[in-house]
């Protein structure tokens, strides 16, 4: 095939470069406008920054469009396209290649950031003269300057090649064999980048000294959107790894997974403790710090994953941006600490906590547990680096460590989650808890008995399942009472939506506990017609299909899982990638998953295959639980009247 139209397409790369430059200039223009307006106290000039935001956003849209056109039209004169796409790549993956490698993923970051900043500019346009809003917008625009700066200089996605290759190299095959690849990174970035908005308002509150609850109310919905996107993004990543990597797990404590988990942990602590501040005006320093830390951790995570300092499955996008990202992270930390230190004396809370046995007490316990959780994840992730720096020793911190340290915290979190809805604000009499927690506790006990009947064993797993039942009982009780009092609006608002989300967490916990504790595994060497049996499931090897799909050799073993149908685990040999890639096939049901993978490409002139079969109970509950959590969070966001009656009247329940 001839090189198609290199000369005419170079214009696309130019358009992209132009778009990035416009974005950069827009961000700088916005910053300068706001700085001069704030310095000269001309509130009427704040509005001009909105124009700059629009300019920045249009530049970014232009750049993203140029990149997508380049990808879709196989313009291999563009370096990024040549390195990461091929002619044979299916349409969906061509689109998704935008975020398949470093430069493109930074472009996506800038794009999502532009969308958020534009949304903020539009929704606050009537209050732009407020210095708080102006400072928040200024902070966000400064972050835009940094990311567009990366795109203009060190991570330019629109470099061109003087001689376009006939075909590109294509992405790492792991990144182009499942449609989740198209959604997971986008959701994750919506979450990661979304925390920029509350961060901006937190900085603005500190700078302007308006440290009351006003800024929190303003950012509540933004925080929840970022949080739910991050939650869904992480779970989609887990699902992707379950469906693609072939070992039957969904979480490996890989540094990159941890990097996305860390801001989630501190963000989760924040969405809980902020309720105490909105309600009682307490924990101001703490909440601000949590937000600042959450945002700093998103940058730190990007540093970990983009600098190549840590070995990881995700290292397909390592680069030399490390020092820049580390410097930006350090800057954020220094500014945050300085601001909190400067305003520290004004952050004293007017309220006080009267009793540990109260709603406030439960939120504090939640925060203690979540920050401890985050600390352990952070420590385990960076510890090998620390040790290597100190004495040059190479060591690894893996799953056994995280399991041992974190499972007890998880159990404690379930306990708090179950008790909290039975508590009232300020203080609760023990007898009240005794009355309210009785039915939930009975549900928990019944769940344990049920689990034993289904063959569960082991103290830890059964206790976890029982606590999950307790949480469901406690949350359902709260919801039922709210619905009786307030009608269906009882399931909305912070309290109703939160309870729904907690039920989702319990479902997820059931799936996690059952699939990790009660899975069974076997490896079979089978000839066509041979049978095997694992955990009550009969499988039969039907035949093998060995065919070429374009340049790739695809070997499929067709296996009949009794009662579920034919499933085909696959191994693909890509010509541009050394090691063959195995893709599992999963027979899913709500009771258990039968997870089939082909261990190796069968030898020539042999009809024997080696099949690994893993039976994992309740895995599907993890994904269902995630959906329920997302639904609950949306219920908490949805009511336009931010303080529906259910929200204000939760005391009496």
């Amino acid at each position, binding site marked *: 095939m001839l090189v198609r139209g290199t000369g005419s397409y170079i214009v696309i790369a130019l358009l992209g470069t132009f778009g990035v430059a416009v974005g950069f200039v827009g961000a700088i223009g916005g910053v300068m406008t706001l700085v001069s307006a704030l310095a000269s106290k001309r509130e009427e000039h704040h509005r001009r920054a909105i124009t700059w935001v629009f300019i920045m956003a249009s530049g970014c849209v232009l750049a993203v469009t140029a990149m997508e056109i380049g990808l879709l039209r196989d313009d291999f004169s563009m370096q990024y396209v040549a390195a990461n796409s091929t002619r044979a790549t299916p349409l969906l993956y061509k689109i998704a290649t935008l975020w398949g490698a470093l430069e493109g993923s930074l472009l996506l970051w800038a794009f999502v950031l532009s969308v958020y900043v534009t949304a903020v500019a539009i929704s606050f346009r009537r209050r732009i003269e407020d210095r708080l809003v102006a400072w928040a917008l200024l902070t966000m625009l400064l972050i835009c300057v940094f990311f567009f700066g990366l795109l203009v200089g060190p991570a330019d996605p629109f470099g061109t090649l003087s001689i376009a290759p006939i075909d590109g190299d294509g992405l790492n095959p792991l990144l182009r064999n499942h449609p989740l690849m198209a959604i997971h990174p986008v959701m994750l970035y919506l979450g990661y980048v979304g925390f920029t908005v509350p961060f901006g308002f937190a900085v603005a509150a500190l700078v302007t000294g308006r440290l*009351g609850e*006003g800024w929190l109310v303003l950012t509540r919905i933004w925080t929840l959107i970022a949080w739910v996107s991050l939650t869904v993004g992480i779970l989609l990543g887990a699902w992707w790894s379950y469906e693609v990597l072939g*070992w039957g797990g969904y979480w490996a404590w890989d540094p990159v997974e941890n990097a996305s988990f860390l801001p989630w942990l501190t963000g989760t602590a924040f969405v809980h403790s902020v309720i105490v501040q909105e309600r009682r005006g307490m924990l101001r320093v703490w909440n601000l710090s949590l937000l600042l830390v959450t945002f700093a951790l998103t940058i730190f995570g990007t540093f970990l994953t983009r600098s190549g300092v840590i070995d990881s499955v995700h290292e397909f996008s390592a680069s030399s941006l490390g020092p820049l990202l580390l410097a930006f992270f350090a800057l954020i930390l220094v500014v945050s600490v300085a601001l909190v230190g400067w305003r520290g004396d004004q952050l004293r809370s007017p309220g006080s906590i009267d009793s540990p046995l109260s709603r406030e007490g439960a939120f504090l316990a939640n925060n203690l547990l979540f920050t401890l959780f985050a600390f352990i994840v952070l420590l385990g992730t960076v*510890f090998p680096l620390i040790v290597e720096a100190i004495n040059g020793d190479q060591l690894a911190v893996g799953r056994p460590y995280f399991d041992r340290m974190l499972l007890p915290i998880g159990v404690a979190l379930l306990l708090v989650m179950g008790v909290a809805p039975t508590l009232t604000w300020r203080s609760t009499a023990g007898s009240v808890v005794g009355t309210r927690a009785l039915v939930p506790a009975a549900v928990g006990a019944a769940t344990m008995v049920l689990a*034993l009947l289904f063959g569960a064993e082991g103290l830890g797993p059964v206790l976890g399942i029982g606590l999950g039942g307790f949480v469901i009982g406690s949350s359902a009780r709260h919801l039922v009472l709210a619905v009786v009092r307030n009608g269906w609006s009882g399931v909305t608002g912070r309290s109703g939506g939160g309870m729904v989300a907690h039920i989702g967490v319990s479902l997820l916990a059931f799936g996690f506990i059952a699939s990790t504790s009660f899975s069974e595994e076997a490896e079979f060497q089978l000839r066509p017609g041979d049978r095997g049996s694992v955990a009550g499931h009969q499988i039969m090897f039907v035949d093998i299909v060995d065919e070429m799909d374009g340049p790739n050799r695809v070997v499929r073993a067709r296996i009949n899982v009794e009662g579920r149908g034919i499933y085909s685990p696959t191994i693909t040999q890509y010509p541009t990638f050394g090691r063959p890639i195995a893709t599992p096939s999963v027979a899913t049901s709500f009771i258990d998953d039968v997870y089939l993978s082909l261990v190796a490409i069968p030898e020539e002139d042999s009809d024997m295959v080696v099949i690994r079969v893993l039976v994992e109970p309740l895995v599907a509950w993890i994904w269902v639980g995630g959906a329920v959590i997302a639904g609950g969070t949306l219920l908490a966001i949805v009511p336009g009247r*931010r303080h529906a009656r259910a929200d204000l009247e939760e005391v009496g329940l």
Partner: protein
Amino acid sequence: MKQRHWISWFCVALVSSLALVASSIADDPPATDGERAYEIKATTLCPVCDGQNVLESNAPVAAAIRAQVDELVSEGRSDEEIRGWMARQYGKDVNANPPRTGIASLVWIAPVFVAVASAAFLVFAFRKWRVGRGAQLSDDDLKIVSSLREPT
């Protein structure tokens, strides 16, 4: 609390304890060779594949290590011997479980220390909070809050 609550709680506690006891008495036979080998493979990282353990990885070296573990286990070597052998052969960082001695023990100790320290801080804070003094809400803040609270 009413008396029937006490009775109900007693029943719930009884059932729960019985369930938990039943869950843990399922007699645990000594680990079979297969289970031991599985445990070692699950906690040995594949040296070439960035964080995956040898059980999960389909890299050739992972397959080789799996075979070695099976062989060493069937020869009757102890877990420690096998892990030591793996560490000498492939480097200390194939063991996913950080050691509990030397500087590495910090990774185990630090979280416990932080947990105790922050719990102690909270207890201290509880006492101090009772005599809390406060910052004032600015008028602007109150305005924002009340405008948002008013049902429109």
